[in-house]
């Protein structure tokens, strides 16, 4: 992360990451079928990637080893 980011921008980014982590990783689960298909990837990382791909959805793709991995996201 850029250490020289302005305080307002930094605070906004922290708030967005906290939002993403809450909505994707917390809250009650009813069916037990929710899978955010990025197994073994830290959700904070996922939150950051969602920030970077704020236009396109993050769609996991199967790599050659058969495990889901996030696609490369475009920088804003």
């Amino acid at each position, binding site marked *: 992360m850029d250490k020289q980011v302005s305080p307002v921008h930094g*605070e906004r980014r922290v708030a967005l990451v906290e939002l993403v982590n809450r909505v994707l990783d917390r809250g009650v689960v009813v069916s037990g079928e929710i*899978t955010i298909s990025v197994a073994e990837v830290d959700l904070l990382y996922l939150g950051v990637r969602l920030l970077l791909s704020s236009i396109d959805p993050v769609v996991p793709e199967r790599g050659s080893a058969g495990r889901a991995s996030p696609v490369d996201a475009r920088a804003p």
Partner: protein
Amino acid sequence: MSGCYLYCLVPLGHLPPAGLTGVGGAEVRGCDVGSFTAWTSDADARPEPSLDGVREHHGVVQVALEEVTPLPVRFGEWAADSGQLLERLRRERERFGTALDALAGALEFGLRVDVSAEETHEANGAFGEELSADGRAYLRQLGRRRKERRAQVAEREALVAELRDLLGAMVRDERPGAGSAGGASVAHLVARDDAEAYARTVDRFRGERPELVVEVLGPWPPYSFAS
């Protein structure tokens, strides 16, 4: 037939405002299930996680929070038809009813405490200057740096504990933070009536400790306390 997407559960009879839309722009409606009401919308398929979807989901739950404390549902709760979803909710109505009751009248705040960015930058800079040393020295420095970081983590956790003591009974419950960009992060469950006093107490602590970064985010719907 359209599938059904679930946002949150609220006390019985609290309906979404007319015209409220959620994921994919679908209109949100309320369905009564035993002692609570489920806020749902039509959805042909389980939505993929995206920033827009996250914002749309949270937007609905946040509207619910304006009137009552909802039990937030995790993103992605979807069933092929509303009957299936309602049946799942009925099967576990006691669990959900108990969870709703436990959260009644409360809000979530996110609290993050960290040493200042300048202090972190200075420490990282000093370590960076030593990287040109030989391999053995580098490994020693790496070990020292890890020890310093463990000490920093302990220091930040102690600061959070100190703040928690100041907040006292205003904190009904505490959970690990929902993803911190560094620092020590916790989620606090606070009664609505205590929200202003909570914020004032944190502000006072921040003023007394200018060397620290103290951030409060919220109020949130109580995602961190939903299970």
